[in-house]
């Protein structure tokens, strides 16, 4: 039983490690491979659009992983290697959209909404506290004293 459990755990652990990247795609230089790996996790697979090419088993994702590694092996900087794919497939291949004119709404929208909402809440709270401002009238003072007194009495009686 123990052995079955152990092997099941091992299988699960291996399944976690298994990625779409196959050994024959990998670069011999571990430093370059690490760079390629990090980049490919930021690039969208065009076939299964919410997966990175690092995760995807689609043939096109395989091709793009190989191309990316070719570019890096040829001496491209990270930026150049990614641009190579962006020139072909557009900004859409970037899982992290760049900050530029046509994505301002995307990046700044949430901040703008938060500011707008925050301003609204602040104005509302200030307006409310302003109406509640000022000292209590004599009648209110008396009423407050009476209420506090009865509360104290209730407490003393309760103990």
């Amino acid at each position: 039983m123990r052995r079955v459990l152990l092997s099941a755990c091992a299988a699960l652990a291996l399944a976690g490690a298994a990625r779409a990247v196959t050994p024959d795609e990998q670069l011999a230089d571990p430093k370059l491979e690490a760079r390629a790996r990090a980049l490919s996790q930021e690039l969208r697979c065009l076939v299964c659009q919410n997966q990175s090419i690092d995760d995807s088993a689609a043939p096109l994702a395989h091709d793009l992983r190989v191309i990316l590694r070719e570019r890096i092996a040829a001496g491209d900087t990270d930026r150049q290697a990614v641009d190579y794919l962006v020139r072909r497939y557009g900004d859409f291949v970037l899982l992290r959209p760049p900050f530029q004119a046509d994505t301002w709404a995307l990046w700044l929208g949430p901040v703008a909404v938060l500011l707008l909402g925050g301003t609204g809440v602040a104005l509302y709270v200030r307006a409310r506290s302003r109406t509640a401002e000022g000292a209590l009238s004599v009648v209110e003072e008396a009423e407050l004293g009476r209420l506090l007194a009865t509360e104290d009495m209730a407490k003393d009686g309760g103990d």
Partner: protein
Amino acid sequence: MRRLLALLPVGLFVLLLVGFMAGLRRDPAILPSMLIGKPLPAFALPPLKAGETGLASADLAGQPVLLNVFASWCGPCKEEHPTLLRLKADGVPIVGLDWKEEAADGARWLDENGDPYLRAGNDRTGRAGIDLGVSGVPETFVLDRRGRVRYRQVGAITPDVWVQTIAPLMARLRAES
């Protein structure tokens, strides 16, 4: 004035709602091509059958033409094929790019289903297609007489797509000098 200000969040919400609803209707598979208005990237592909001419990007200037990316392993291509054959019969110039398969497989597919292409090239590694920004098959690029990409059709050319989109565009491109 204060009333209007209070309605502002509701207005913004409705605006966002409309935006998101419109977004839901868009097909996420249809992506803009990076090549619109630009010349075709250079490629020179071998033919599907020995002895034929193959397909090079340099050959494609002169008249508006359809560049159809296909593969024998592609389901929707089978659906598209009769339309392409009909277009060929009507005299529409179409060239083929056989994507990511052995030339023999592409050749067999054309033998079995009919050949709608003036000429076709085999892109076994898929690199020419990737240079075009192809993300799947079928895809079709409409080229003007100067060899520039003017339109990209993602997915099959159905009779509807032809009549509504590509035929009018081809007519316009033929009228261009």
